[in-house]
């Protein structure tokens, strides 16, 4: 922060532009955003989809009319794109994701503060585990 032109220019850009502020914000606002990003990178590395497929899926989401003009919901679109792509690929069906997400939330509530949240802590049992055990 040398007070050189560059700084005030950025501030002016943010204030005048209708372009959002936060020019030097951290890459991710919340940990889940970083994880959603990393899952996507890892699945691409695994060959599950190409970057073109990914760009198309993400584009459909961010172009929705209800998308926030400031891009603040960007990673929500990112996650929606990932979920849809995984459904199309038959890897993770929406119902399974819903059920597991609910289980994770129950597990979190049942976990005392300061301890790691584990899916096993879900008082209603673990739908993922049951589906795995179905094979045996």
């Amino acid at each position, binding site marked *: 922060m040398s007070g050189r032109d560059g700084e005030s*220019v950025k501030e002016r850009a943010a204030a005048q532009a209708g372009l959002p502020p936060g020019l030097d*914000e951290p890459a991710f606002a919340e940990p889940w955003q970083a994880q959603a990003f990393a899952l996507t990178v890892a699945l691409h590395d695994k060959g599950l989809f190409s970057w073109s497929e990914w760009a198309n899926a993400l584009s459909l989401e961010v172009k929705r009319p209800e998308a926030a003009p400031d891009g603040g919901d960007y990673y929500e679109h990112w*996650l929606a794109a990932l979920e849809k792509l995984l459904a199309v690929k038959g890897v993770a069906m929406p119902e399974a994701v819903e059920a597991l997400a609910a289980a994770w939330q129950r597990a979190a509530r049942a976990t005392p503060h300061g301890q790691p949240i584990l899916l096993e802590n879900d008082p209603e049992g673990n739908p993922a585990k049951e589906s795995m055990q179905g094979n045996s």
Partner: protein
Amino acid sequence: MSSDHDHDNELDPMAARVRALETILTQKGLIDPAAIDVIVDTYETKVGPRNGAKVVAKAWSDPSFADWLRRDATAAIASLGFTGRQGEHMRAVFNTPDTHNLVVCTLCSCYPWSVLGLPPVWYKAPPYRSRAVIDPRGVLEEFGLTLPAETKIRVWDSTAELRYLVVPMRPLGSEGLSEEALADLVTRDSMIGTGLAREPA
């Protein structure tokens, strides 16, 4: 987000969905949770615009590197150890007194991660994505950058396969600076085209 509950632990819906995906993908052997942590760490702390700044500083100081960068940016950049894990191709576009280059991704948010890290919020937001193409001069003015009327502005629309790095003009008064000192003059915005390189103090 939702914090109206007073439970000891509460996962917000987005965090819970990500955990759900991670659980399924781990069970199916498609991901390794440890590898996910490494990726997060890499993008949070290790890659960023400093990589791109080193590329630009080298191009300023080494004409043969600049020439290589112009002809085959993917290889020239990889020679410095910055390789796109997406396998995307890079193209370097050089600013001149006549032409200023500006990069956007109108489709979504394609960005040269390996040299610039993750894109800033405004790069991903609808106003920039739509207006950079329609009114680049107006957008640049909003960034505080007013170019002479005779300077042409070229807008490059990134894709999943091809991403652009702007090589800004070397600032006046930077003669004789080391590559390291030059790299300090190269801002992220100057490599997207929404800014210029800083002049030496």
